[in-house]
């Protein structure tokens, strides 16, 4: 199991765009360590035995239930009203979502 350090937690927080206080980072480091320790049980499974098992990415696939999931024709259809959707934005209008300046 990898060592869960403050640095690892800070790196994960940066990757997931989460601003955390020092106190939160310390607490979450402990939490993650305990949870990953528990998840080690997965590593005790005989890998050779399960390499032949296909990973499940959809609860019904590989169970003879493939027909349950389907793709629709890729055709344009009317969506929700743009102005209505923009009403929910913290800063929006004129057909746009507004964000802080990206370029200097």
């Amino acid at each position, binding site marked *: 199991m990898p060592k869960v350090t403050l640095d690892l937690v800070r790196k994960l927080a940066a990757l997931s765009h989460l601003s955390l206080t020092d106190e939160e980072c310390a607490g979450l480091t402990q939490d993650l360590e305990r949870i990953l320790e528990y998840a080690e049980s997965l590593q005790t*499974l005989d890998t050779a035995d399960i390499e032949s098992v296909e990973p499940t990415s959809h609860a019904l696939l590989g169970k003879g239930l493939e027909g349950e*999931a389907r793709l629709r024709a890729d055709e344009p259809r009317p969506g929700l009203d743009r102005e209505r959707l923009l009403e929910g934005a913290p800063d929006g209008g004129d057909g746009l979502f507004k964000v802080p300046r990206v370029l200097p």
Partner: protein
Amino acid sequence: MSLWELSLRSLRDRLATGEITAEETARSLLERIEAKDGGLGAFLLPLADSALERARTLDRLPRNERGPLHGVPIAVKDIISVEGSRTTAGSRILEGYVSPYSATAIERLADAGAVILGKTNLDEFAMGSSTENSAFQTTRNPWNPDRVPGGSSGGSAAAVAARLAPAGLGTDTGGSIRQPAALCGVVGLKPTYGRVSRYGLVAFASSFDQIGPIARTAEDAGLVLEIIAGADPKDSTSSTRPVPRYSEEIARDVRSLRVGIPRDILGQGVEESVLEALDRAARKLAELGVALEEVSLPAAKHAIACYYVLVTAEASSNLARYDGVRYGLRTRSSGLHEMMSASRGAGFGREVKRRILLGTFVLSAGYYEAYYEKAQRVRSLIGRDFARAFERVDAVLLPTSPETAFPLGAKSEDPLSMYLADVFTITANLAGTPAVSFPAGFDTAGLPIGVQLIGRHFEEGTILRMAHAFQSATDYHRSVPPMAG
């Protein structure tokens, strides 16, 4: 008898004959919510005005235009979108957000004539087993106000148990319908993955999430499921299989059905009273003519580890959308990335942050194969275990929760102990199978105990039939919690 005391089925029948009106029904329940919910905290947002207006419109409909749930009031977990109403998902990050459209399940309930009573409390983004992770309020267990109602659909379960609604909608990713139903002494049904459209459900873990009913009886749960189930062009994972009339299927004989208890996973940590209730339920089913068989689920001992790797991965990806740009909370900051990180840091609670970090970890380069991919393979093994069991039996019988309702605060500082509360429910989510929890006894402190039947994919009718037969022969579901008096 007051209208709020009636089950969904009796309300529906009286509303259909015109013996009672939709308006007096809605009024009776809204007055009850007003009087009782202060001490319970089940509702985040009662929708009194829109419910009464809707009920009056329904009352004016000619008889031949009335739907199968004409005038029936329903409570909705606040993670399912209702057009024009706030949807918070229990999170500060969505505070103030108003849904611009309704979930397909809500549209179908509306077309059937149902009245939405209000939005109920939940753990933030449905992440939790006690409803204590709500950013807004505490929900109490109607059987004992110092205990949790379970979660994450704790608001809907408490509302149904306290007779504030004849039925509610919940969502179940790892047990979030069944576990609170068990802890509150009501029925909770997680449908097969794909049975109910997820369109309009705020996503947590998309290969697990399902919407389903919470009610007092298996029959009432079936009456709601047959309305909300079915194919939806807006959700490509919704099944095109025809939807049976569950409320008719439940009346069929249970003799010839077979049930198995996988004793190999009833390890330590299960309360004695829960094991006794399980055995009592098995004996009762046997008395009713159900054959008992031996089954085993050998891979299920890895279920919790497997589940928390996969759902956190899916959650970290799904929750990337809360970035302070399109909806919800924005924390002012100078640059774009700073604004996003600050908004997410301020808007998400501790458990959500924990899961985003864990999900980011298991998906990151170097750890992906050891955690995420491995868990996906273990998920397949658990699916195989069920397939093997279903060659011998029609359903698997398990406790819903290893314990009855625990005290508020008992696990809120210990995430792992909270995760262990899901030990018996998550297997059905990993396999995508349907499962129904129903009341099967009380512990010595008078707290309700639930057991669950897990069935084959798309065989909700079979497990509801057995739960209905059990409820027809027992009185556990008729007990009313003290708070509901």
